[in-house]
């Protein structure tokens, strides 16, 4: 009963990790997952409005529910191309 959480680019630098797992218990939506990491890495708060969120490779918003087995990705605005 867990979710995988991925960070990329500056957010991987901020959290010092690219990937981690969370026990699903206690996490209801993307915001609850994000808040969990803001608690550990306060400067993540700066990204609350600019960060992008995806579940299983589709964009979602902070109020999207998370489910067991989901891959949740948190990343800054993109700059590819």
């Amino acid at each position: 009963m867990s979710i995988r959480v991925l960070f990329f680019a500056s957010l991987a630098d901020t959290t010092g990790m690219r990937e981690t797992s969370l026990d699903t218990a206690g996490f209801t939506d993307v915001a609850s997952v994000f808040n969990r990491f803001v608690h550990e890495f306060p400067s993540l708060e700066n990204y609350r409005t600019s960060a992008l969120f995806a579940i299983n490779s589709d964009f979602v918003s902070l109020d999207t529910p998370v489910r067991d087995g989901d891959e949740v990705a948190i990343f800054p605005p993109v700059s590819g191309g």
Partner: protein
Amino acid sequence: MFLLVRNPIEIQPIIDTIQEPEDGALVMFEGVVRNNANEKNVRFLEYEAYESMALKKIEEIGSQAKKDFDIRDIAIVHRLGHMEIGECSIVIVVASAHRGPAFDACRYSIDTIKQIVPIWKKEFYEDGEVWIEGAK
């Protein structure tokens, strides 16, 4: 043809892969690493991606381009990793009977890639390095 690669991209093999005898126009875009950005000299770049999602989004953009514009096919190849000045980070090739829709589809695709595909560029200067966040 939608690919993420880690080696230099060559445009002619991409053209050869997608061109068909009924095509009359190819419109192509190459994004290349510039030697300057934000008034600083750039030494080189690194591109990182959320690869599975990036490829999925690139495929979605290509499919949307084929739906929205009267083109026959589109190829999008994005390179990841370390790139020197002048090297190519992305190639888009659009093939169609006529040029108008090919121009429109190519423009749409690169604009949308820069907005939604989870790939990030890190610029390395003489005095440091910066993750670029957000499209230009």
